């Protein structure tokens, strides 16, 4: 690991001032950053520890029924929150299916969105072709092992996927990322937060250098919501594919509105917007719902080794939707 200088800050102002200096990276929970440092994915001159910045570790109810989750709230604390459990179960489930209890006690909800891909060429300890690690070196996975890769939105430059579980739930919830920077701050929809390869492989998110996530904001409660994660072992493993769904039912039990996001199929959570519109007005167990989800997955353009994930993603989407609607077909 390359030497760096460390400092801890306790105010957001100090954090912003330090983070905008060149060669500086930000430490929060550390569960990603420490591995980036070890692998040489990141090699900063300075590391600013923001984990004790005051005020970013709270969860507050918003006027209008939403929820503001401070960026530094640890994943396990988000999942244990009573409001989250009651009103946004999809987020609680996605967190509980992430990583391990130990890692969730460290990892923060804000920086969880900054996870980088698990593509083995990107994470390689030896030099392997990867346009994200070494610009212009090529995509090792495109010519090699491509069985944990993208179904949507990839290019010849990069076929990787975004591995975060909470991000998928947050995308289905239309959550907002609230940021602060020297010039002010902004609100970014989680669905617009990650950068697809077509827009460049030199960055993972739209966050600018020195811009910090202050909070994640949830809108209206989504008590009918669920997360389904399919993986090669029952726990403590990344998804082959996952799905988050929220649904509102009318008095007759038909779908009034639904939101569905897939995980681990692209470099951002992938919303099935067209299918969401098509299933409005249908009973959750109507065969037309299954057909709409199948049609959505027919638009997938998988890399060859990952074509098998289409059926998994389709099944996960259906199961998440049925579970959210409390229908057991």
């Amino acid at each position, binding site marked *: 690991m390359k030497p*760096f200088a*460390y400092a801890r800050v306790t105010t957001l102002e100090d954090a912003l001032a330090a983070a905008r200096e060149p060669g500086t990276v930000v430490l929060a929970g550390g569960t990603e950053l*420490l591995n980036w440092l070890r692998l040489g994915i990141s090699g900063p001159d300075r590391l*600013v*520890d923001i984990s004790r910045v005051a005020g970013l570790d709270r969860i507050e109810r918003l006027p209008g029924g939403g929820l503001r989750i401070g960026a530094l709230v640890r994943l396990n604390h988000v999942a244990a929150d009573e409001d989250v459990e009651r009103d946004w179960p999809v987020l609680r489930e996605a967190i509980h299916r992430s990583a*391990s209890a*130990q890692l969730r*006690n460290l990892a923060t909800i804000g920086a969880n969105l900054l996870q980088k891909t698990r593509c083995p060429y990107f994470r390689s300890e030896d030099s392997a072709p990867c346009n994200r690690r070494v610009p212009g070196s090529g995509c090792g996975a495109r010519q090699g092992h491509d069985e944990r890769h993208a179904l949507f939105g990839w290019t010849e430059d990069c076929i990787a996927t975004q591995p975060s579980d909470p991000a998928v739930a947050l995308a289905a919830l239309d959550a907002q990322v609230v940021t602060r920077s020297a010039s002010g701050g902004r609100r970014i929809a989680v669905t617009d937060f990650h950068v697809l390869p077509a827009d460049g492989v030199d960055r993972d998110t739209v966050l600018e250098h020195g811009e910090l996530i202050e909070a994640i904001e949830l809108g209206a409660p989504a008590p009918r919501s669920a997360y389904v994660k399919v993986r090669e072992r029952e726990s403590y493993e990344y998804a082959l594919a996952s799905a988050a769904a929220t649904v509102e039912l009318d008095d007759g039990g038909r779908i009034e509105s639904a939101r569905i996001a897939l995980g681990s199929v692209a470099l951002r959570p992938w919303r099935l917007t067209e299918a969401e519109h098509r299933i409005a007005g249908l009973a959750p167990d109507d065969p037309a719902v299954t057909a709409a989800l199948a049609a959505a997955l027919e638009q997938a353009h998988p890399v060859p080794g990952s074509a098998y994930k289409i059926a998994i993603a389709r099944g996960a989407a259906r199961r998440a939707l049925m579970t959210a609607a409390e229908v057991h077909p």
Partner: protein
Amino acid sequence: MSAPQFADHVDLRLRVNGVVRALDRIDARVSLLDLLREHLELTGAKKGCNHGECGACTVLLDGHRVNGCMVLAAAADGREVVTVEGLASDGQLHAVQRAFIEHDAFQCGFCTPGQVISAVACISEGHATEEREIREWMSGNICRCSSYPQIVEAVKAAAAAENNPPPR
């Protein structure tokens, strides 16, 4: 507001197993795990993968179980750490340690300190009521000898003993 002082070595004070330890000029890159093992001679927590994937380095940080390899020692300054060496008291092993022995919950023993610390936390969190829950909430501790059935039994027994302590 004073500008933060960046330094490549840091002075640390932290409470480890109930004792305040002061360390000077520790390289900023040192992990909490390496601080314990290399600077404080506490080799209970093991370095398995050094990537947060195996759980052999699990310790309690301010009462919460964490992977010692994923925490910078500098970031643990001022915190309270408990390792497997800090569990026994008055010459008596902790109830979880006794349960691991009684249930043969290990073969080679390399993962055991992490398993034991993780189990202590799992029980105090209230995540040890039944087998499925124990398996889920202990999944961050990998056992290459695959002693999982015995580990589950040990955690279950220790949790039950904690809820119904024997008369002393």
